[in-house]
């Protein structure tokens, strides 16, 4: 559904940050883009969201080249949850979520009861309904992240329809700024959303275990290039980890949760130098 075909991109054309990446997100898929800092994950996510145009290659949504689709149309099907959200002014949580409905409004149109209902449902879905009248800046890190996810859900929700089919949720390092408890919160939320709603989710992260516990397919990214991609069991192996991080690790499946878990043991050789 969302597909990148051999995309290249650099903020400075002489130094490409994403080199020849191809990936595929099927409807209802859960893709993890895994890589160390500086591997080009955020840029790749921007390319997938259509906010940057690849210098070579295409990004397509249902076969349509994103660079040709109007931004408003894209934003009705795809929402991005950034790593950190800092508001310039004091909005309430509900106002932030309602901003997710803006792509669905015409010029000068205001949110109708349907939009407000979707906003409330999204807050409900992320367990933040009782925070709706609180000022966003007064929320904790985890609460903020969940409200922003709610806003993204509201953005890709359709009025009146329970299902949000063929929509994509992109999250950029959703747990990077959070401590352990909030990380688990967000992970649980994403898992639940994945089960309940038929949306596709793409997560970029450097956190191995987070990716391992959630995603069905993985792309290993290093220095802008795809090192390996495929089903999670095939990619997250000691060999793959050694190649990606230069670290010896043990990979096992926890009986309690059924997730893969990676335990780093020791550094091997020098990491891929940047």
């Amino acid at each position, binding site marked *: 559904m969302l597909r990148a075909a051999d995309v290249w991109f650099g*903020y400075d054309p002489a130094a490409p940050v994403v080199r020849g990446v191809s990936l595929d997100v099927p409807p209802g898929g859960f893709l993890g883009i895994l890589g160390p800092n500086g591997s080009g994950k955020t840029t790749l996510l*921007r390319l997938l*969201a259509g*906010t*940057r145009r690849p210098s070579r290659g295409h990004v397509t949504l249902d076969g349509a080249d994103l660079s040709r689709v109007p*931004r*408003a149309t*894209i*934003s*009705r099907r*795809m*929402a*991005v949850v*950034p790593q950190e*959200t*800092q*508001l*310039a*002014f*004091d*909005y*309430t949580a*509900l*106002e*932030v979520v309602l*901003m*997710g409905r*803006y*792509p669905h*409004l015409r*010029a*000068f149109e*205001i*949110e109708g009861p349907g939009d*407000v209902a979707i906003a409330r449902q999204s807050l409900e879905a992320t367990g933040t309904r009782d925070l709706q*009248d609180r000022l966003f800046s007064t929320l904790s890190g985890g609460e903020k992240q969940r409200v922003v996810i709610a806003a993204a859900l509201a*953005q890709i929700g359709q009025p009146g329809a329970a299902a949000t089919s063929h929509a994509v949720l992109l999250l950029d390092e959703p747990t990077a700024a959070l401590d352990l408890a909030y990380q688990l919160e967000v992970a649980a939320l994403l898992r639940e959303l994945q089960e309940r709603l038929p949306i596709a989710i793409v997560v970029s992260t450097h956190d191995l275990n987070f990716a391992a516990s959630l995603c069905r397919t993985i792309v290993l990214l290093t220095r802008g290039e795809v090192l390996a991609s495929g089903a999670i069991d095939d990619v997250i192996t000691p060999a793959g980890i050694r190649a990606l991080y230069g670290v010896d690790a043990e990979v096992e499946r926890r009986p309690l949760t059924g997730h893969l878990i990676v335990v780093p043991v020791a550094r091997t050789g020098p990491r891929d130098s940047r």
Partner: protein
Amino acid sequence: MNRTIGRRVVVAVMGFGLLAVAALLLAPLAGSTSISLRRAFDPNIPFTDNVDAQIFFVARLPRTLAGALVGSALAAAGVVFQGLLRNPLATPFTLGVSAGAALGAMLALTFNWSFGWAGIAGAPLASFAGSLAAVGIVYSLARAKHHGLSTNVLLLAGVTLNSFFSALILFVQYFADFTETFRILRWLMGDLDVSSYRPLVTAAPLLLVSFAVFAWLARPLNLLSLGPDSAETHGLDVVRAQRAAFFSASLATGAAVSVGGPIGFIGIIIPHLVRLLVGSDHRVVLPASILVGAAFLIGCDVVARTIMAPLDLPVGVITALIGGPFFLWLLVRKA
């Protein structure tokens, strides 16, 4: 604030609209002289003989309308610049527009440029031209080659332009003689005594255009406060919105400054005050700021011309005396 946005806008406009209308109606009744309203409105006395009528219709009414125009323009421009630069401390003068206007007026006043056009005298014209020049310079500096309008470069360019133009202003002042220097300083403090409807009639269409663009900008400004990347993923054409915000707010500021001089503090007090009362949604903040800004400046002008009669204080002094402490209070409150 569970009420829907539509209702909030209506309530704000009606409430603050009442305030603005009251200011407009009451201000011309106040002044350093007492006049007889009955005489002023007496149709039997020819206008050229009716001192009371002239005080009301030539001295006070244009002044009140100028206050409404300049106050609403600067307040709304303040809101838009704050949204564009994502900084609650931004003012309509941050990006150098008023420095350009001041330089233009300064040149006209110092070298006594006596040209007029469509009934507008040299100083306001030169002031407007100066503000356009400043806007042009700042914009061309800030236009990044690849992705859009960099607000950081915009800010740097504006601050640099402010310093540079201030230096030029000092340089020009050096060549002025006494009376000119005094007049220039007075102009810098703001003066709403237009004594004619012409400058208002000329500035009004410019403001209407700006306000129309502001109306369109309300939702984009909400999105811009999420950050330019997030705004983009919400479907906003960020570059187009930034450009529209920059030019419309600069136009409003340039028009306001050419009517009344660079009156400070309105562009920063009113947006903050309004946000305290109605929240941050620009769809409410913008119309509310326009109305509150008008009422506020009209009020300050009444104070300026009555508090130390027969001396007429510059209105910029009154806005500063009120604005300064208010701003300190805001900062203390936030800390």
